[in-house]
């Protein structure tokens, strides 16, 4: 594993994996106690922080939708995550700068919600639902299969997720926020191979193409 003690985490990601520090963590100072003497980070000064214009415009547009600008916190973090690949300290700083709130406030929000990636994420994100209905139909096995197929590579982030609201296609996955299911034997490996080949994964299993279950019923039972 490469070491990069001088890595500046506040700079935008230039591409490629984020190197780990000597402790194996990607967050410097993770094992140091908080410095209670220090003042908390203030609202970032827009004159000193370069926010990409596209991100600034997007967050400003989001803020304008609400009677209260704080309501934009979730969509603004989502936008920053899209721009940076994950909710990096830099991404949070930029969102805070545009929203005129402290980075601490946005960090408190980002750490509450499951969809914000607080560690560098891969190019693709695969959520595997492992809640009751899916696990009754083999989701835990599927999750293990997909994790094994991805291996140590960092190009695909695999996460087990709580109920994704698609128990009708259990076991199911959400690949870059698109739902697919039900996954059968070998579909986990196929999914990973297709993602790596740059193809749409499991196109025939896409949820959006399905009709209601009631429409499949024999006429007499409707």
């Amino acid at each position, binding site marked *: 594993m490469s070491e990069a003690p001088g890595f500046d985490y506040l700079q935008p990601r230039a591409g490629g994996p984020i190197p780990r520090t000597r402790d194996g963590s990607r967050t410097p100072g993770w094992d140091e106690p908080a410095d209670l003497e220090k003042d908390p980070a203030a609202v970032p000064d827009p004159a000193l922080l370069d926010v990409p214009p596209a991100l600034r415009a997007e967050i400003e547009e989001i803020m304008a*939708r*609400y*009677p*209260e600008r*704080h*309501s*934009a*916190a*979730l*969509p603004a*973090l*989502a936008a920053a995550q899209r721009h940076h690949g994950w909710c990096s300290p830099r991404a949070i700083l930029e969102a805070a700068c545009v929203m005129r709130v402290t980075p601490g406030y946005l960090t*408190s*929000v980002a750490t*509450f*919600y*499951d*969809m*914000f990636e607080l560690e560098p994420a891969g190019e693709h994100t695969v*959520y595997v639902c492992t*809640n*009751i*209905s899916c*696990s*009754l*139909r083999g989701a835990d096995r599927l999750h293990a299969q997909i994790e094994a197929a991805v291996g140590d590579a960092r190009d695909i982030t695999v996460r087990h*997720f*709580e*109920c*994704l*609201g*698609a*128990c*009708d*296609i*259990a076991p199911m996955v*959400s690949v870059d*926020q*698109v*739902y697919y299911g039900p996954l059968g034997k070998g579909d986990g490996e196929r999914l990973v191979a297709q993602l790596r080949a740059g193809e749409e994964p499991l196109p025939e299993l896409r*949820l*959006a193409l399905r*009709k*209601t*279950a*009631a*429409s*499949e*019923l024999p006429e007499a*039972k*409707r």
Partner: protein
Amino acid sequence: MTEPILFKDIDERNLHEIEVYERRGGYKAMRKALAMTQDALVAELEESGLRGRGGAGFPAGRKASFLPKGDMDKYLVCNADESEPGTFKDRELMQKCPHGLIEGIVIGAHAAGANHAFIYIRGEYEEQARILDAAIGEAYAAGYLGERILGSELSLSLVLHRGAGAYICGEETGLLDSLEGKRGNPRLKPPFPALQGLYQGPTLINNVETLMTMPHIVRMGGKRYAKLGVSGSSGTKVVSVSGHVQRPGNYEIELGIPSREIIYDLAGGPPRGRKIKLWFPGGSSSPVLTAADLDVPYDFDSLAKAGTMLGSGAIIVVDDQTPVLDVALKTAEFYRHESCGKCTPCREGTNWTVRMLERIDAGEATPMDLDIMASVQEHIIGNCLCVLGDAMAMPIGSMIAKFRDEFEAHIRMRQLEAVGAS
């Protein structure tokens, strides 16, 4: 069953487009509702007997009437956070018929006198959010949203707000905090959202299915709608059936039909050669029932009498090949993960329940653990700001009560294995 109401034309091609929706009679009920006075509309909703479809089953008309009158900013929030395990009805409804929801929101806003509306959709539903966003654009262009809708007194803005993955944001006050851009921690009630909700203003919060039913009530008239279903549970309901059934999916039923009909006739029952061990009638938060309860009518009051609840209308079927411990552990792990951590009984109770269940599989538990676990559940119920902890305590408590023998056998088996291994 009688004709489907919410699922009529649901599989029609391009129903998500405004043109197709209007050709199928869409937005007619909105015109009719806008021509009615607010009081007449609320009376119509009350007469229909419609009860909230999100989980609590509170009468929808009465809820709308709680908002104060007067000229202030009032809010309607559509709860589309659907995250109760086993529930996926709103996903299908929104994806296939987004305009049905928008029409329901306009009608709901008129009933509540609201001028700002929000749809809080869970972040994972990206495709549905995209479809809804496009539909909202179409509705604005057609003049069904915005200033003075169709020349009436009602002005309404509608914003789609995407969550970011937190079960607790389906709880109405947690949802409001999340919509205000905070961590989704539930609030102390009272004050109830009807008086002090979003941005401290009067707020009506309704589930997707509740709102989507409103146009049909206006179209049919409250009296005719109330004839559907049974007394105390009028109308139809979309039920999500999942788990060990042959045809998992959403089925629209008339409330009050025997549960057996839903599980066997519609969803096809458990796979061949297997039997039902237990089933959750209303999502993973509802106390479980067994095969002996299959003839309980599927409606609010009958299920309450059977010691459980209709909840969000999500049936999860578990067959006899699955150890009850696995189901309990999955359930408890979910609530542990989703507890916001604000109230101690829930935060600690969910955590210790998981750890005690894990002890069973590790061969370290004794039958006394079951009593302790049951008492933990009792200490959670009613002692928190919201019902997330209760939502774990009720099913876990019911599993311990109904499957105690199996738990004890499991404990003994693992103990013997542990002894044999050492």
